[in-house]
């Protein structure tokens, strides 16, 4: 079971959260070309390794958290509020 250490609530089971996918893509500005929206919605690196992703603490503090997690080991390296800029570990 993935345990996520919510910066507000402390460590919680994954069932408290709703996954919301890749957190490295950002919603383009209104005047951005269609391709930018296409990439935002559909293009994913889908790495085998460290992944920065959104987890919504839906059954807790209702915050979207940025989680740095490894897609092979499932180790969680960092959990941060939505607006935090996070580093992706190199390996």
């Amino acid at each position, binding site marked *: *079971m*993935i*345990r996520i250490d919510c910066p507000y609530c402390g460590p919680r*089971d994954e069932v408290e959260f*709703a996954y*919301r996918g890749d*957190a490295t893509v*950002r*919603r383009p*500005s*209104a005047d*951005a070309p*269609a391709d930018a*929206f*296409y990439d*935002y*919605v559909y293009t994913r690196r889908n790495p085998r390794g460290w992944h920065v992703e*959104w987890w*919504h603490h*839906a059954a807790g503090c*209702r*915050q*979207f958290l940025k989680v740095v997690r490894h897609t092979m*080991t*499932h180790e*969680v390296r960092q959990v941060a509020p*939505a*607006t935090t800029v996070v580093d992706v570990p190199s390996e």
Partner: protein
Amino acid sequence: MTQRFRTASGGRIDRNRVLRFRFDGRAYEGHPGDTLASALLANGVRLVGRSFKLHRPRGIFSAGTEEPNALAELRSGARREPNTRMTMAELYDGLEAASQNRFPSLRFDLLSLGALAAPVLSAGFYYKTFMWPASFWEKVYEPLIRRAAGLGRAAREPDPDQYETMHAHCDVLVVGAGPAGLAAARVAGAGGARVILCEQDFELGGGLLMEPEHAAWRDETVSALQSMAEVTILPRTTVFGYYDHNVLGAVERVADHVAAPLPNTPRQRYWTIRAKTVVLATGAHERLIAFPGNDRPGVMLAGAAQAYATRFGVKAGARALLFANNDAAYDSLFALQDAGVAIAGAVDPRPESAGASAARARGISVWADSEIAGTSGGTALHGAHVRRRGGAGTDTAVVADLLCVSGGINPAVHLASQSRTPLRWNEALATYVPGVPVLAQHSAGAAAGVTGIAEAAADGAKAGAAALGAAAPAIPLPTGTTADARVLPIWEVKARGKAFVDIQDDVTTDDIRLAHREGYKHIEHAKRYTTHTMGTDQGKTGGIVGAAVLAEARGERVQDVGLPTFRPFATPVTWGAIAGAHVGKHFAPTRRTALHEWHVRNGAEFMDAGQWLRPAYYPIPTDTDAWESVLREARAVRRAVGICDVSTLGKIDVQGRDAATFLDRLYTNTFSTLAVGRARYGLMLREDGIVFDDGTTSRLAEDRFFVTTTTVNAAAVMAHMEFHLQTAWPDLDVQLASVTDQWAAMSIAGPKTRDTIARIVDGIDLSNGAFPFMAVGDGTVQGRPVRVFRISFSGEMAYEIATPSGYAEQVWNAVLAAGREFGITPYGVEALGLLRIEKGHVAGSELNGQTTAADLGLARMLKKRGDFIGRTLAQRAGLTDTGRPTLVGLRAARRDEKLRAGAHLVEPGSTTSHGWITSVTRAVEIEGWIGLAMLRGGAQRIGTRMHATFPLKGEVVEVEIVSPYFVDPENQRVRA
């Protein structure tokens, strides 16, 4: 004589109490402290089962979870549980068990005749035949195979027992309460850690239980642990899986040692344990040696025979022979000798050994440098053939009814391996032991390849100290000398006859070699081709032996072949335990509106809407069927007034300086221009341009809106809002609160609505001029606060009254009383659906996640200026294609013909679908059946006729394609 194989004294059974039980209908006796297996052995029962494929006779092979043979159907009727290991089934008074996988009886199993064809039934034989004729597979071959396969019979009635879940957190989880586990738990506990100690057996002690000389240390340690407030001891608890982030699953058998659970007590309890550190003290399983006839009843693991003698006071046979490749196994033989079992001798493949010397000193004859080349007997062992290693010279026939086998030990590394701890090869034990763990975890004792009571306990103490991570207190430890567990790695005796590597599934060494010969050389291929290790025992005693046979065929070392992956479950786990209390009506929570009790009292038929229960309709005695109720309710709305509970719609309170800006970006239409005290219908897209949700939103103040969503999307819309607020537009000042449950809501609709509610609503001038269509205002009803919205879903004049949900029934009753003279009628979701279809309002069947605004005739809702979610991708060619199906109305051409949702629209005589019917109803506004449909070229087809075809029922109905707005297309009534 009963219990004629019971020793005169000794063991941990309570000889003062007698438990009566039945096996295959025959009555036997045993004692508290027995397992079903030990009690059967005490009564001289040797034949207990039949093998999976060949139906060969099978006896008790082990004394623990690794048991491949001794499986029974325990209990009966709805409580029947197949494949229960007799070695794990704690004896209780009245226990009933039956052997399985035999016909008609265990002793005379007709299916064993199939064994005559055993050469044909080689590994993978079924892949090479049964292909002709093709139709025979399902009709002939497969049913035969299925009937012969399988083991026990499952119950066919719902389980009467209850199960529960338990969530636990600890500093140190210790798995296994043998010497290592007890010591680890004690050190950690004494050091102040929160400890959970799980033991699958009903007694703590593991290997200590068969070593009477260590009983004192065991007892003292257990009582010390019991006195520690922060140590939780869970006997009868099997840790079945080791998951990410040091979370483990365990099942506690709360009431399996009694005939049925006590009232208010679950049968089993499923634990989710979150551990900072885990100590795996799971012990080891003794392994078999593959020699011909190694499956005959009477062949038993040496350690198991010892456990029966010393722990259970049972002689597993009258005359025992040992076949072992290690010194430690001789201790088992000596224990048997001490228990009064006659000893036929020991067969040892090693030329000389300390074990053999010790045996000779005890007067036991030893065949050194020898091996067992076969066994004799029918359904029980009569003897074995001993020969020099490699087969030189002549065989010696040795009479024995118990053949104790030890090929060494396999540490129980299942949990460690599941946690991604790599395994490494241990040359001395010729087996795998855990390597350096990835997670916070320590393996200790036999599980780490450390054998002997004293050594294991010391290793456990060390692991406990490491888990504690602080200065560890000293604890008393057992002392003693330990026999050498090193083995001469022999795996197989090659001689004439079937030598089994998987006793349950009848996989032989020849099967493994055949798999190799046919190219299934990888261990996973060989496993799948032969079914090696795929039985209920998961190959705990023979897995590595099969790997060794494969390695030899490949010309490699065992460790180069590897093992199949260890996956959960380390030990099979009861389905019901994991389901817990989520059974029957409690599979999912039930959500009830504040008016639920009123609906119940007034005879509503309910339907599910997600987790909500909603009234479908309210039958009255004069209604002859459901449709009559629905039509009666809908007519009341069209002709007078009706009232409907609409509390399930999602409601979100949106506040903040930027609330209007936010809603402008969220919806396809504009909310910043909405006046305070007014409501507006809104449409929301997903970012991919597909319609997401709709609803009315009211402006309560400059900085406060009241948003409503559809019932099913309420939670999704809230999350959608939060996602964009927090990640895309974090600068906006907006606060969101779900108020779905705060407000009950009722829709009062029909031409008499104003006349009805004007009598009871205070504080709002409800006249059309003062409170027009889409007005919103606060008032009271009999002193209760209400918020009134002039909105309509039915197409009639309608008002929605929302009130804090604690007042729902009071306000509802007030409305009913006020409308009585107009014949006010409560209406349910069915009538609501009828009314909205007549009005052409789209709902869930049309907002199905596949439709665009234009598809639904809502293109006008997309504002021309400004950003909103979904704006850009909605313009993709595939979503603006004029060939897409669009919303139309339908009417059955013959008024007495029924329409069905899910029918497809075709040209007469064609099978090409041009669209499908999304919603249908019998109408009240006009005659007959009407519906809504998504139809290619819909607008152009209005006024034409098509066929609605429903091949699943063989129905074809002629329909008129019409506008979806059957009622008041000019919207006069809602503004009346």
